[in-house]
């Protein structure tokens, strides 16, 4: 069980979280829904350990590894699609890379560089890289931005089949349909509705 207790966090003067608490089981797909800028990304960054709360504590993640998909694609312009995957795999197996590309419907684009990908394709590549990295749970920040709803639903169904707990942020209805739980938020400072 993931427990966030009395979390406070601010970027300088800008207060993002104030005494925020949340409890949710680490299983299935949980979706964080809320308006832009309400603090969802900050929450994911705190869970990934990229930021540290100024007050409060996070429990239930001890000894677990996570893979985070950032809000931006953060692709390497000098690496091909396939290399993005082999770079994060423990052993650079091309077959395994292909499996992840098939999951996000990018098979056949192995030798292409990111500059030749569309926005949605870049997003799917970033998602495939995050999935290939793997971990005990996945934190996905807007994984389907720029991806058409039908494709987003197919990909999310495949991610669900992997069995890894997922916490993601999204506004898309097809994504919300597949979620085990939806947490509605507003802010800043972030609070649960």
């Amino acid at each position, binding site marked *: 069980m993931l427990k966030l207790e009395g979390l406070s966090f601010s970027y300088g003067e800008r207060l993002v979280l104030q005494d925020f608490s949340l409890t949710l089981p680490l299983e299935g797909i949980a979706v964080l829904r809320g308006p832009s800028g309400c603090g969802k990304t900050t929450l994911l960054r705190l869970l*990934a350990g*990229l930021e540290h709360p100024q007050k409060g504590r996070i429990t239930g993640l001890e000894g677990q*590894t996570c*893979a*985070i998909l*950032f809000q*931006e694609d*953060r692709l*390497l*312009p*000098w*690496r091909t699609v396939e290399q993005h995957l082999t*770079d*994060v795999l423990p052993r650079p197996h091309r077959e395994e890379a292909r499996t992840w590309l098939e999951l996000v419907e990018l098979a056949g684009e192995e030798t292409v*560089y*990111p*500059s030749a990908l569309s926005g949605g394709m870049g997003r799917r590549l970033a998602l495939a890289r995050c999935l290939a*990295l793997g971990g005990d749970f996945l934190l996905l920040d807007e994984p389907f931005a720029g991806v058409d709803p039908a494709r987003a639903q197919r990909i999310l169904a495949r991610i669900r089949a992997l069995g890894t707990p997922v916490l993601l942020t999204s506004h898309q209805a097809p994504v919300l349909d597949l979620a085990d739980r939806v947490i509605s938020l507003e802010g800043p400072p972030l609070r649960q509705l």
Partner: protein
Amino acid sequence: MEPVKQKKSIPALLLPSAFWLGAWQLGAYWVDRHVDGHGNELLLPYPASVLSALLELLPTPAFWATVGTTLLRVAVGLAAGLLLGTVLAGVTCAWTWWDRLLSPAIRTVRATPVASFILLVLLWTGRNTVPAVISALMVLPVVWENLSRGIRSADPKLLELARAYRFPRWKTLGLIYLPSLRPYFLSALTTSVGLAWKSGVAAEAICWPRPGVGTQIYNTKLYLEIPELFAWTATVVALSLFLEWLLNLALSRWKGGGGHA
């Protein structure tokens, strides 16, 4: 997007050279006619005289031994400067205290007149070592500054990705730092080749190691053999351009690798 390189036509290649050759010929003629002592080529020799001096030098084994030795000295200095500059850039960017300690020293090296260094190094080491040491000293700050700027301008979001994705240091270096450094390194290299040549030959002209292109240039001054001075200078320019072309050729694969840096 990288600009597409257009192949230059033969007139486009030859016309600028022909223009400057013509200007030189006219200048030499003007000097010949208007400066006291008609017929002397002390101030500005004719292109034909320089070509004749060069053609006299070219078939002699001594010429090639001189050029080869200078080339070796400059190449050693250039390699040492590149290596040291790269290591120091890495060290000063990785550790603040090393940066505080070394940056003023490297900046001092950059600001110190090359003549002072040549005389100092001549006192400390043998005359044959001076050109390589001077080339290295001139190249080092250029490489250090360019690479330091490159390291500091590596995308922080990609570096955060490397941390979040648990990349080991060698992978972060290979996947993020090195590709980001590529343009900075190439810029440093291009500048360094010319700098190494100029400073190396200047050091030879002051220290007279034998054999050496700089020593020959000094001798031409001593005996007022101005066409020979031009011929040796032309040799240095040609060699510098040749070395630059050779490096570009060797690095073209690296430049093109990925093609998206």
